[in-house]
């Protein structure tokens, strides 16, 4: 128990000591929130309705997809996890504690957005607090799981950035953050449902803000929960202690299974 506490404490502190993590966990999402909130609300007053869910999902994406994987890959490539292994640090702790610490930091950011957006931009707060919290946790876990999986299957930090951007950029454009899902062409909308951000936005708007959505928000919540569980299980199973790991391509193929719940969401919701 003491070991877990020391480990968790270090991971939490690391998020603030590591400048890259500090940037991606706090400065980037909060800076973007202030900029997008000011600009987008002025250009398109309708954006006001989605400021809170869009900027919270944006923060989750930035922290989990761009911030979380890199330190894990860097540590693995530098042989740090070999040191951990010889002292008996379990693989589950190595993966889950940085994930949990990242989510804790992102929860602070999300709380700042949720509280200040109504004051700064006149954005509506969530109408169902419990549902908001539930969807937030599911979306956070889904994105963190995906970030961990990216870290586990990436051969290098360069690959990590590529994989992260491969999900991040389409999520920003098609996930319903900047443009409502309803106005996206059908084919792209179908593709967008392969992204956790789309389901996070859909579930938040439908369940937490009481809006009418294009497809089932409960279904989206189920997709997020299944996606989170599958991603974490795959990440733990595919975790390797060092860079000499064999069968990286096979593991990447196994990692691709994470898309299954989202594919099901795209086909059946």
């Amino acid at each position, binding site marked *: 128990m*003491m070991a877990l506490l020391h*480990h968790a404490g*270090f991971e939490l502190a*690391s998020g603030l*000591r590591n400048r890259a993590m500090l940037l991606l966990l706090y400065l980037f999402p909060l800076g973007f929130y202030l900029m997008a909130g000011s600009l987008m609300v002025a250009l398109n007053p309708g954006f006001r309705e989605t400021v809170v869910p869009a900027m919270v999902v944006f923060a989750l994406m930035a922290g989990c997809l761009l911030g979380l994987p890199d330190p894990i890959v860097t540590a693995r490539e530098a042989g740090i996890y*070999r*040191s951990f292994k*010889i*002292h008996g640090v379990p693989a589950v702790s190595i993966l889950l504690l940085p994930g949990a610490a990242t989510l804790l930091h992102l929860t602070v950011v999300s709380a700042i957005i949720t509280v200040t957006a109504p004051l700064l931009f006149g954005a509506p707060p969530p109408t169902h607090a419990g549902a908001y919290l539930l969807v937030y946790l599911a979306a956070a876990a889904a994105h963190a799981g995906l970030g961990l999986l990216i870290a586990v299957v990436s051969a290098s930090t360069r690959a990590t950035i590529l994989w992260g951007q491969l999900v991040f950029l389409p999520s920003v454009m098609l996930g319903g953050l900047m443009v409502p899902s309803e106005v996206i062409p059908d084919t792209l909308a179908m593709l967008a449902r392969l992204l956790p951000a789309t389901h996070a936005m859909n579930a938040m708007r439908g369940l937490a803000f009481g809006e009418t959505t294009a497809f089932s928000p409960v279904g989206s919540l189920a997709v997020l929960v299944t996606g989170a569980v599958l991603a974490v299980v795959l990440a733990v199973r595919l975790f390797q202690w060092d860079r000499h790991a064999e069968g990286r391509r096979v593991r990447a193929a196994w990692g691709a299974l994470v898309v299954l719940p989202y594919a099901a969401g795209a086909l059946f919701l």
Partner: protein
Amino acid sequence: MEPAIVVEGFRKTYGDVVAVDGIDFIVAPGEVFGLLGPNGAGKTTTLECLEGLRFPTAGRLRVRGIDPAREPRRLRDVTGVQLQTSGLPETMRVDEAMRFFCAYHERAPRWDLLERFGLQERRRIEYGTLSTGQQRRLALALALVNDPPVVFLDEPTAGLDVATRAELHALVSELRERGVALVLATHDMAEAEKLADRVAILLAGRIVASGTPRALTAAASDLTRVSVRSELETLATRSTPYPGVSRQLRNDGYDVFFTDAIGPTVAAILRTLEEASDPLIDLRVERPSLEERFLELTSAGAAA
């Protein structure tokens, strides 16, 4: 007494590449065992399989009776490991590292080890800002937090300054006195000769020689090296061969003679210098070292 380490028929392959090809050795409690060999000989692979970081392809490995591949948790309690290539997170402070790893060993922080390795003043410093020598010292300190009866050191003095190297040598002696079995993988032959009770020389995954450093050097070609430096460098110009000398070369300003008859060789050398009125600057007579035996074996292996 039950051996601390047993290695029998150990083989490790990576795909088609054979890293270790069926080696055997035993290490007793209180013994320092040196694994020597050039890069890629299989030293680190052997250590990593004993440490539970990799799994053997074939053979039997036991550390205090524990199978490293099957009982990693029990293995952690009885081993201390300093890896050749490892590190800690850049942002982890020295005191955090001590608390962190001691907690995983279910022990109170070992501040005495920080003191012993001269890191007490650096407690609040992040790992990334420590010098290479300090990082190696911290790795050594962390390897000993659980008072292990078996310690693996992979190139332990790489990057260490002279004082810390001496401190490490003293530590190895102290651990041996306490009955700790140590396995030392190193390129440093002088270090192995000084510290190890027995050594094994690995070449292309096989043990090509093993025994005490003294026995190994005795098995080397029994030639004594006589190195001479003179002002006019006239020794190489002598037309008749020096008695007992089978090989002669020039190295770094010295004429070097390999002889099996030290007295006649030295006498002939001094006579030659006297006849040529060539003042002697330096004369050294050296018995074959472990390094020479190592080079002899590795060059024979390379030629084969």
